[in-house]
């Protein structure tokens, strides 16, 4: 679609994969000075944003073709295409189980660990899937209990709950059954190598409109209007169908495209089961979030940096501390954190994982670093190269590698089939952080170890000490300051690491993830700030303890 827009009307649009919640947070944050001209998202976000006066009303050329109820009468938002919720199934990854046909099938033990759905509070697809399951079991938009009951039952079957679009997870077989749109399933079916199916649940489902809008005070509003005109033109609408999206206006589908959608009989079934439109009745979409300003957003971005230097620490911390009290609870937000078992256990989890990672990294990196510095042998350079290779990998890539190693289709699970999926557990997170930290600590230790005078060791050896004593009496005291510095960086990084947790994120609750959820998804800015402050204070306190403890050790050693 973006390519076609570039070609036809000469507007280059950036690839921006933000999901609806994130787009909304950005729109609110940039309200007075937006970067975007047009936005695209799920319908409830659109209605919410329309109420908050973030959009400029605009009626593109094709506006009158859209049915009433599927557009804002003033043109603040309008439907550009649909998606139907169902199961996106990787048939080969089912391990022989039949393709599920109903929501009810998925709670059976044969689909244990195979079902995935996006976090309903995070992504619109997830929300739509929750609505679909709710309708399927007799609920409506006022009564969510049947849906909640269903997801409770499903929870016993170990579902995977990613925060963001999980197309690749299904294609790769990590999530064999995903609650997703028909267009994603069709894209896989016709464009990927493999055996993919789209299943319309036998109970019921929903058809979800996706909408676009012109952003209020847009920097290039004329260009934005041109883009919207094109998208609603017959030509633009036909392009959606090439991506397996059902267009908003009733254009004639090309033969080859029409044949790819559900066959007519299936479509009748869709009609008979009363596929409901959830567009015009989202009486209670999501909670109305408080406003977030870009200034506060900048403060939050500085959190990881602030851990490292006091200069950077001071300003954002002050701002963070102040903004944490701006919520309804005021300063009581800290009491809330300490009284809420979820936040408290998350905090403890984060500290424990970080401590374990620091200890393991120091042990492995120091052993390997000393060995590599003290011994010359063929292949040594290759080992050093391998050990420092992952330095440039961001946390997200590390998470991806962990999935390659310990995921459902991972190497370990293939070699030892059965029960070796560890990528999505807290142990997977531990390994991810370890992977991230080893090269960093190793380099530091090696550069310090190279400066140790080898004659010192020889002297001790001549005096008859065992090699064991050399490590304790010579090497460790000399390396102690370096190890402490490296350990501190390692610990602080693990405390604040986000990418790895985000990629693996299923049921892992570490503090940075919770902060992300509070900020982006719930837009609960005061709580996010308060949690950031807690993260900072705890990390700081731990480092302070380590430093005072080390002072004694170094003094005793020298």
């Amino acid at each position: 679609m973006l390519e076609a827009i570039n070609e036809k009307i000469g507007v280059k649009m950036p690839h921006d994969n933000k999901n609806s919640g994130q787009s909304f947070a950005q729109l609110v944050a940039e309200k007075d000075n937006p970067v975007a001209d047009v936005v695209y998202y799920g319908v409830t976000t659109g209605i919410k944003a329309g109420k908050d006066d973030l959009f400029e009303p605009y009626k593109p050329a094709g506006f009158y073709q859209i049915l009433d109820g599927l557009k804002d009468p003033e043109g603040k938002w309008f439907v550009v295409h649909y998606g139907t919720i169902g199961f996106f199934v990787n048939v080969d990854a089912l391990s022989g189980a039949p393709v599920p046909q109903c929501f009810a099938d998925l709670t059976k033990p044969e689909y244990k660990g195979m079902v995935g759905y996006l976090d309903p509070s995070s992504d619109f697809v997830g929300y739509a899937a929750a609505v679909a399951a709710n309708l399927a079991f007799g609920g409506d938009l006022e009564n969510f209990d049947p849906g909640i009951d269903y997801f409770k039952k499903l929870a016993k079957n170990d579902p995977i709950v990613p925060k963001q679009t999980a197309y690749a997870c299904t294609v790769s077989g990590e999530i064999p059954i995903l609650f997703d749109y028909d267009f994603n399933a069709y894209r896989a079916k016709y464009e990927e190598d493999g055996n993919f199916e789209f299943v319309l649940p036998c109970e019921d489902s929903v058809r979800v409109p996706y909408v676009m809008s012109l952003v209020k005070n847009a920097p290039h509003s004329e260009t934005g209007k041109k883009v919207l005109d094109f998208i609603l033109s017959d030509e633009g609408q036909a392009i959606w169908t090439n991506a397996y999206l059902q267009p908003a206006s009733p254009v004639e589908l090309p033969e080859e495209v029409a044949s790819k959608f559900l066959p007519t009989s299936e479509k009748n079934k869709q009609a008979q089961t009363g596929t409901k439109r959830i567009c015009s009745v989202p009486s209670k979409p999501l909670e109305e979030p408080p406003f977030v300003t870009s200034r506060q957003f900048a403060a939050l971005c500085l959190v990881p940096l602030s851990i490292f230097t006091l200069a950077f620490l001071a300003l954002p911390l002050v701002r963070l501390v102040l903004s944490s009290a701006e919520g309804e609870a005021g300063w009581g937000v800290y009491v809330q954190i300490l009284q809420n078992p979820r936040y408290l256990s998350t905090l403890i989890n984060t500290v424990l994982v970080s401590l374990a990672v620091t200890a393991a990294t120091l042990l492995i990196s120091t052993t390997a670093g000393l060995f590599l510095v003290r011994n010359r042998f063929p292949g040594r350079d290759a080992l050093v190269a391998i050990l420092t290779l992952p330095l440039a990998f961001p946390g997200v890539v590390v998470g991806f590698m962990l999935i390659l190693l310990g995921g459902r289709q991972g190497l370990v699970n293939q070699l030892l089939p059965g029960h070796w999926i560890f990528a999505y557990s807290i142990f997977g997170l531990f390994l991810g952080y370890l992977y991230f930290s080893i090269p960093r600590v190793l380099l530091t230790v090696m550069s310090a170890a190279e400066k140790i005078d080898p004659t010192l060791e020889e002297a001790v050896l001549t005096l008859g000490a065992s090699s064991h004593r050399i490590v304790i009496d010579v090497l460790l005291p000399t390396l102690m300051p370096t190890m402490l510095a490296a350990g501190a960086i390692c610990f602080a990084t693990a405390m604040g690491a986000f990418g790895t947790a985000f990629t693996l994120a299923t049921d892992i609750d570490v503090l940075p993830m919770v902060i992300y959820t509070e900020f982006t998804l719930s837009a609960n800015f005061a709580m996010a700030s308060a949690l950031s402050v807690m993260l900072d204070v705890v990390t700081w306190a731990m480092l302070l303890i380590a430093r005072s403890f080390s002072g004694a050790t170094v003094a005793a050693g020298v």
Partner: protein
Amino acid sequence: MLKSKTKLIKLLVTQGACAFLFVPTLQSVLAGLTVNYFRGISFDLTLKWIGKVWRLYADSVMLSI
């Protein structure tokens, strides 16, 4: 004797760390060259992903550098 034994342990730790860091790296490289990651490398090797990635993300790669 003790020295060579501790040395052996150190060597094993070093090699273990290397394997831990390198195996997933290798896997991700292979995943980038397989026609279908799900069916594994035995299925077939291809360079089509490299071309696809370059077409889509060349701008981003340049920007990062």
